[in-house]
């Protein structure tokens, strides 16, 4: 491959008077070239951005004051998830905020799945209420959880003062600062 046949009419015996010209090998040592090639490959592998960022779509509901335009939800099918400080999650079922329970991002999936199984799909709705102590990461995580568990009806709503107070009380009781 890397050498060329430079001998002309191989096998011929040259006459006695003909001077034998020195045959130079055209074989090139390719090892340094390979070294260089792999060096550049490693450089490009390390600098390349493998994972392109993705976009996560979110549709916001229209704010409306008119009651007839608002979507009514059945209290029995509602699961309210509140995001607190320190990556903590609080939730309650139905419309009674005093039944608040503490959870975290690992366990919330099981809770969502259980609730989804035990309720009529028509009535099932998840209400997400991030508090002012929650981070953007928490918000995206919980929205992602909706996609993961294939929940079609969910809403992001502002937390009420009473609920925030309950979250704070639970935080204090659990010693989360």
């Amino acid at each position, binding site marked *: 491959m890397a050498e060329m046949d430079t001998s002309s009419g191989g096998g011929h015996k040259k006459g006695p008077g003909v001077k034998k010209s020195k045959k130079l090998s055209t074989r090139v040592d390719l090892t340094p070239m390979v070294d260089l090639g792999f060096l550049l*490959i490693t450089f*490009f592998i390390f600098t390349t*951005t493998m994972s392109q960022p993705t*976009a*996560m*779509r*979110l*549709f916001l509901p229209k704010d409306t004051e008119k009651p007839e335009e608002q979507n009514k939800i059945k209290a029995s099918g509602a699961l309210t998830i509140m995001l607190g400080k320190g990556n903590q999650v609080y939730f309650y079922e139905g419309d009674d905020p005093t039944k608040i329970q503490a959870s975290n991002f690992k366990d919330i999936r099981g809770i969502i799945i259980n609730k989804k199984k035990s309720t009529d799909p028509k009535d099932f709705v998840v209400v997400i209420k*991030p508090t002012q102590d929650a981070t953007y990461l928490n*918000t995206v995580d919980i929205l992602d959880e909706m996609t993961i568990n294939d929940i079609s009806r969910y809403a992001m709503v502002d937390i009420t003062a009473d609920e925030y107070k309950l979250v704070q009380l639970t935080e204090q009781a659990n010693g989360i600062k």
Partner: protein
Amino acid sequence: MPKVKVPRKSTNIDMTAMCDVAFLLLSFFILTTSFKPDEALSVVTPKSVSTKAVDAKNAVTITMDAEGKVYFSVSDENPGEKETIISTVDQLRSLGLTEEEKKAFIRKGSFVGVPLSNLKSYLQLNADQIKNFKAPGIPVTDTLNNDLVIWMRAANTAFAGAKMQLFVKGDNNAKYPSFKGVIDAFKKNEIFKFSMITDPENAPPGTELFKKQEATGSKKAG
């Protein structure tokens, strides 16, 4: 007994094939690589299972850094819209920007992270000064004084005919109130669709989405 002749083999290996492979891979990586753009803000985005790729065309990006400061930027591919945006903002708030200051906004890679009242002085800074400038962020958390509303109204006007792609790029540690302020600014301008820029992540095994992806064989979600 005759001696068994062991032919002496050369230890010289033909490197040509290896060289071919090396350069083939090299050309592949050169062609596929896209360098990370030099970003003025370092933002660590959260992960999501969404698989939709980000398209930079007609993009308006709202960036939130770790401290919850909000920045506004428009894709460099739309210099015309950028001009309309800065002119509209200028008119809406009668800031009295000069042509020079407007050009500073249209310049490549520019982003704004100052209240509208400071916009004029911010646009007078040169590139070196901007590097050292500590931007206070666009105020959003105060509902009465949400400057992003003005920016979004201007963006809406500029992209009136085309389809505007609105992206929110937030840092993991940004607090929820800044995100809410951004959403409020969108809502006030009747924008109800936007995308959040995230890093890809696989669906956790055993979940509904995982089963769905298995069933369809594709990775379409969100």
